[in-house]
């Protein structure tokens, strides 16, 4: 007999999902003026979870006006110490309601409860705690004696870490004294809407946080709105470029966190067992829906074969299935559309002659799923080595010398993250200096902390989130004109 884990389901009774949700404007939920609704779906079952409002131009106007009023009258003139009180309160409420957020995130996004419970929600709370601490210390951020907030920030976040990306965006913006109009991704609005309840529970002054749901059109209207002083966007490089075009010639400030095609580089003196774990964390964490995923594995040739064998053995223990099962490692792909993209690139890998290996696991009949997949014999020219797949698909390349590893790792339009595995400290430091990527992990991968800045080079975007560096995205230093960014008020 074998050791089969019995189902260990997290109860969904802790969350109550309303049949439909309005827009969160000026501290209240209001119906969309268009009256238009769209459905949000559990990607693991294709069950409709709720109807979500689509915000149009007049909703965007209302949200921006409410944010502007809150900025002028309350939030920008409030002392940092008082802003901090609200942020600490939000952080504590997130912790108190952590289980509720975790279950809701898993239902709406498809990620395993183990990840939403142990990573997404605790880190989201940690970001609010961290930036709450900064709110009354901004003069020590290295931006001059009295750094001023920018005004109203428009923030557009992706579907891969819905609550966590909300926290990354909101916490520094609010700590610095800005007010916000935030748009979650159309497939994952629910935790943002639950967060709106937290804002009410925390007595956050109305208008400081406004949450508009909708798709690309809503996002575009936020980006183009004259009352916005700053846009922060996390998402695809394609949309990021169009935002930058739209903002050209305006006073709006911009930070972009876009795609990636990170190299995870394993040297022959690496701790191989832990490197195998790092490969798994790098590309199979969150079904590979991670902009900084270690999607290109660069193996030193002398250990390539044994590492791939060890990796295959390890992948056979990965458990794909019901995201609410506490033992699930790989959840559902967030949308049909994303699954189509992943499958199209897998076909391209096959067609271009790479060798595919797929972990043996049964895919559930309902919902959208993709088994962990490895391509070996990949070359730099293959599409699967150049394009972001954003799924559980790993491209394996090899190298012979450290120089070659650097060349191959940097030979990409992206530059978000990279991983180095070696027991030799001097080599790690040398490599880290050569790699053109914003985040470099040594002997680990996909570790996040609010105190550590995160952001990209090249087509992976610009600006940093997290750490002291994350403050400068929401403050103007003393030598910038006061009227320059706050113009419209």
């Amino acid at each position, binding site marked *: 007999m074998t050791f089969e*884990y019995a189902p260990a389901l997290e109860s969904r009774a802790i969350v109550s999902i309303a049949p439909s949700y309005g827009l969160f404007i000026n501290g209240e939920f209001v119906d969309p003026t268009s009256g238009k609704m769209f459905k949000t779906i559990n990607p693991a079952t294709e069950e409709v979870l709720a109807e979500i409002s689509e915000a149009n131009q007049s909703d965007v106007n209302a949200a921006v006006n409410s944010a502007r009023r809150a900025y002028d009258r309350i939030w920008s003139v409030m002392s940092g110490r008082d802003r901090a009180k609200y942020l600490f309160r939000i952080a504590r409420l997130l912790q108190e309601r952590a289980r509720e957020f975790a279950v809701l995130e898993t239902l709406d996004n498809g990620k395993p409860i183990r990840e939403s419970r*142990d990573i997404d929600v605790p880190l989201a709370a940690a970001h609010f705690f961290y930036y709450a601490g900064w709110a009354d210390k901004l003069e020590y951020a290295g931006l001059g004696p009295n750094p001023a907030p920018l005004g109203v920030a428009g923030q557009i976040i992706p579907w891969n870490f819905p609550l966590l990306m909300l926290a990354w965006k909101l916490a520094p913006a609010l700590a610095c004294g800005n007010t916000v109009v935030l748009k979650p991704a159309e497939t994952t609005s629910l935790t943002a809407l639950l967060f709106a309840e937290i804002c009410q529970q925390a007595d956050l002054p109305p208008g400081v946080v406004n949450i508009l749901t909708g798709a690309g059109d809503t996002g575009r209207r936020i980006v183009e709105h004259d009352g916005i002083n700053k846009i922060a966007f996390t998402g695809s490089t394609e949309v990021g470029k169009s935002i930058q075009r739209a903002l050209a010639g305006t006073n709006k400030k911009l930070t972009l966190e876009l795609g990636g095609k990170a190299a995870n580089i394993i040297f022959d003196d690496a*701790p191989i067992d832990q490197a195998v774990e790092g490969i798994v964390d790098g590309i199979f964490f969150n079904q590979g829906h991670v902009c900084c995923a270690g999607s290109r594995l660069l193996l030193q040739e002398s250990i390539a074969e044994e590492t791939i064998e060890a990796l295959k053995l390890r992948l056979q223990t990965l458990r794909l299935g019901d995201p609410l099962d506490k033992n699930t490692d790989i959840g559902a792909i967030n949308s049909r559309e994303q699954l189509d993209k992943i499958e199209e690139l897998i076909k391209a890998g096959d067609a271009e002659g790479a060798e595919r290996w797929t972990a043996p696991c049964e895919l559930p009949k309902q919902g959208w799923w993709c088994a962990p997949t490895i391509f070996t014999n990949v070359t730099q020219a293959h599409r699967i080595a150049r394009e972001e797949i954003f799924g559980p698909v790993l491209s394996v390349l090899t190298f012979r010398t450290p120089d070659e590893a650097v060349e191959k790792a940097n030979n990409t339009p992206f530059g978000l993250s990279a991983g180095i595995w070696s027991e030799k400290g001097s080599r790690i430091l040398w490599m880290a200096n050569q790699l053109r990527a914003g985040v470099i992990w040594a002997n680990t991968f996909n570790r996040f902390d609010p105190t550590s800045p995160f952001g990209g080079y090249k087509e992976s975007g610009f600006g940093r989130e997290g750490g002291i560096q994350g403050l400068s995205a929401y403050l103007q230093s003393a030598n910038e004109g006061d009227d320059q960014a706050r113009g419209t008020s």
Partner: protein
Amino acid sequence: MQTVAEPLTTTGALREFLHALPGVDEVGATARAAALSTRSIKNEAKAWAIDLAIRMVDLTTLEGMDTPAKVRAMCAKALRPDPTDPTVPSVAAVCVYGDMAAIARASVGSALHVAAVATAFPSGRASQEVKLHDVRDAVAAGADEIDMVIDRGAFLAGNYGLVNEQIVGVKAACGTAHLKVILETGELRTLDNVRRASWLAMMAGADFIKTSTGKVPVAATPPVTIVMLQAVRDYYALTGTRIGVKPAGGIRTSKDAIKYLVLIKETAGEAWLTPDLFRFGASTLLNDLLLQRQRMATGHYSGPDYVTID
């Protein structure tokens, strides 16, 4: 992975082999152990795991105050852990000092293994001659498993040849008895040392590698056990021989025991989920397994007065 081509017996050859093994990143190994400890084992899986854990226990008493009566009582418990429930399996073995081996053997007959600690347990600080005599004594008294300690001083000094020679000598003195080699990982300190000592013991003839004596402050830990499970997995891939693993000391609850079973399944593989290849060295663990088993059967918790204290 390297191949074991020539006999590795000299300190120089052993150093070359052991120091070429891939390093172990402590942070990564600890993180992996923590991640696996979040596995949630419920219902029929838990019932199955508890019975397997009972069958893997080396029920142990290693005290200066051990008496024949104490050993006999423990043996009775080992044979029939829960006198109220005949469906509870026996444990794997009883584990005693060498001078109690005869009493243990007389108590359990051929129903259970009798393990004796030997080789100047727990410090191992005696001449090889004394250690070998200790082993022969225990085997003659009826022990069919010998738990030896390695010379940690020699290992830490890099004198791998001496450690190897001692294990080889003990293995020969064991005859047909199974040899468990205690690495005393709490004194080796680093996971790199744990990996090297594991390979050294396996190549010298260990049938089992065991973490600890239970006599130093740090005993078995999940990261140490993961590294040892990786070692036996890799040794099997290289030689086709499966070596057993025995964490000992500090494992007191069913929850802990089940976590170790998860480590086995997801590190070495299902083949190691047998008392022939995995043991728990424990004294108090058994009662918690029995309490949990009663709870699974009846739906409610009883208390410590409903399991025997032997």
